[in-house]
């Protein structure tokens, strides 16, 4: 019996230690099952939109994790770039551009603004950088609400024609299963790209830059280049999140991109886990999912009080992010296995 159990645990461990792609794909597949759960009546009809928002905001938070977790830089302007993604796509679509081109143009423009911030970041550090990016976010928000091409209240986007002929479905929000699968697929791709990035020369250089600027420079890491890379990557992730928002929600409001959103995204990174890709999703789930999916049903309007308490508890016990829970579980698992095997060898001896 013990041998079987031991073999099984070894197999499980070996499986997850295997290829990186497989873990991300399995994770994506699991998230894609969520609409199916709706079909079986396990989750309510309104919840698919909340899950979609978690997926979208995870992409945004991944970008911020590159800044905050790896590069030691901060941005309070994230919301502005998510807005740029959603509204930019809307504006270009209204101009009659095909979706792919609209999304690409939006991302390129946002990346250019990101590069500009990266350039400025050489002159300002820490709290000053936070304040500077805060006002970048504010400027973007003012632009969205004041300038006419953004349509005042919102831009209606509607169903998106993909590749010019393939119309993504325009069902009511609770029925957007196909769209949901697409945004999860994009999230998984972004996760894999980030995995590669942080395990490469670039990722190491970003860490070196934030942990010891002197050592980084002595080893040939140009602070300017890597600050630019950090801000451009973070901006592109945020903008892709915005494009996904446009695709799924099918309209782009002009007033939603406030400081609140930027702060929530920071909270997701901190609560979920610095430098952790799965942790970022977990953070998005804790910050957005738990109050809206679970607590709202239990407590109604006061759910945010409970989620606030929950987040404080998580930070108290897991200051390096909630993802540490899983590391603890893994540790117990290995300890348990070790105990089992030593007991057995004692008996046989």
């Amino acid at each position, binding site marked *: 019996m013990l041998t079987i159990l031991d073999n099984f645990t070894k197999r499980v461990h070996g499986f997850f230690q295997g290829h990186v792609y497989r873990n991300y794909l399995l994770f994506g597949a699991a998230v894609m099952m969520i609409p199916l759960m709706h079909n079986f009546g396990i989750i309510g009809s309104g919840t698919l939109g909340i899950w979609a928002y978690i997926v979208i905001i995870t992409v945004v938070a991944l970008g911020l994790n590159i800044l905050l977790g790896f590069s030691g830089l901060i941005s309070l302007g994230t919301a502005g770039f998510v807005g740029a993604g959603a509204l930019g796509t809307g504006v270009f679509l209204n101009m009659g551009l095909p979706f792919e081109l609209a999304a690409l143009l939006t991302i390129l423009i946002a990346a250019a603004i990101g590069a500009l911030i990266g350039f400025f970041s050489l002159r300002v550090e820490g709290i000053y950088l936070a304040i500077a990016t805060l006002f970048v976010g504010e400027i973007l928000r003012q632009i969205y609400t004041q300038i006419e091409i953004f349509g005042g209240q919102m831009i209606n986007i509607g169903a998106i024609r993909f590749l010019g002929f393939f119309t993504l479905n325009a069902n009511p929000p609770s029925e957007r299963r196909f769209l949901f699968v697409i945004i999860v697929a994009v999230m998984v791709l972004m996760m894999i*790209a980030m995995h590669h990035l942080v395990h*490469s*020369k*670039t990722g190491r250089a970003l860490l070196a830059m934030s*942990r010891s600027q002197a050592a*980084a*420079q002595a*080893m040939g890491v140009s602070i300017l280049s890597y600050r630019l890379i950090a801000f451009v990557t973070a901006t592109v992730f945020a903008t892709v999140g915005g494009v996904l928002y446009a695709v799924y929600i099918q309209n782009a409001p002009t007033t939603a991109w406030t400081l609140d959103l930027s702060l929530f995204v920071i909270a997701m990174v901190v609560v979920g886990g610095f430098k952790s890709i799965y942790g970022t999703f977990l953070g998005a789930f804790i910050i957005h999912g738990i109050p809206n999916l679970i607590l709202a049903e239990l407590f109604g309007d006061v759910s945010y009080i409970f989620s606030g308490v929950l987040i404080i508890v998580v930070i108290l016990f897991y200051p390096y992010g909630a993802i540490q829970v899983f590391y603890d579980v893994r540790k117990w698992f290995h300890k348990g296995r070790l105990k089992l095997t030593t007991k057995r060898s004692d008996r046989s001896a």
Partner: protein
Amino acid sequence: MKTPLLELNQISMTFGGLKAVNDLSFSVFPGEIVGLIGPNGAGKTTVFNCVTQFYKDYEGDVFFDGLKGKVDLRTIKVTDVIDQGLVRTFQNVELIPDLSIMNNLLIGAHKQFKSRLIDHLFNTKKARQEEARLSEKALEILTFLKIDHLKDFYVKGQPYGILKKIEIARTLMSDPKLIILDEPAAGLNDRETDELEALIYQIREKYQTTILLIEHDMGFVMNICDRVCAISFGKFLAMDTPAKIQKNALVQEAYLGKDD
């Protein structure tokens, strides 16, 4: 007469009103182990920072006859100094705590990676091959330093002796012609210091490199160095073999004070 590898020509560096380095000249020849000594605050680390271009506004010139021929280092950016075959360590170990030892070594090879951001995002064949090739090189160096069994551990939590070794290992990743060590023996116990001594000889032999070091442990300096340069309050006192430096009246005065 051999041509010098590193040549400092009348270097001065001022902070506010303080002259940290004052009209200092000395040369280091290929294959030497040279020590730079002086009482606390003599300006030793400032000299290193001028040589490695962390400070740019020094007076005088630093010439280096490195991998790309003789250059005036002032014309080289701080991040390009490593390309010349000139690499340094730091007084307070500067490693990346939340990266594995292996990855810390790979940072030392930063400039040898030719793949670009786009290769990294998609983990192209080029990026993978490069990573594998340089990881192998890093493993060779770790084996040489006998810390290869630790390669996958985080730097955080390693004992100080190991940290010092990792920092030296990182310098070796760039195939240096001159390694500048800032207090390599500080914080090491006697056994570790002896080990470091042997290691520095081995490095010189195996990697055909020259070494310039700052150190307060006089026993260590006198044992290991071919020549020693002594400075005090930024000024040149003497440069000679260890035995002669020990007998030099100016050096004795700087360390022990003057007899009245």
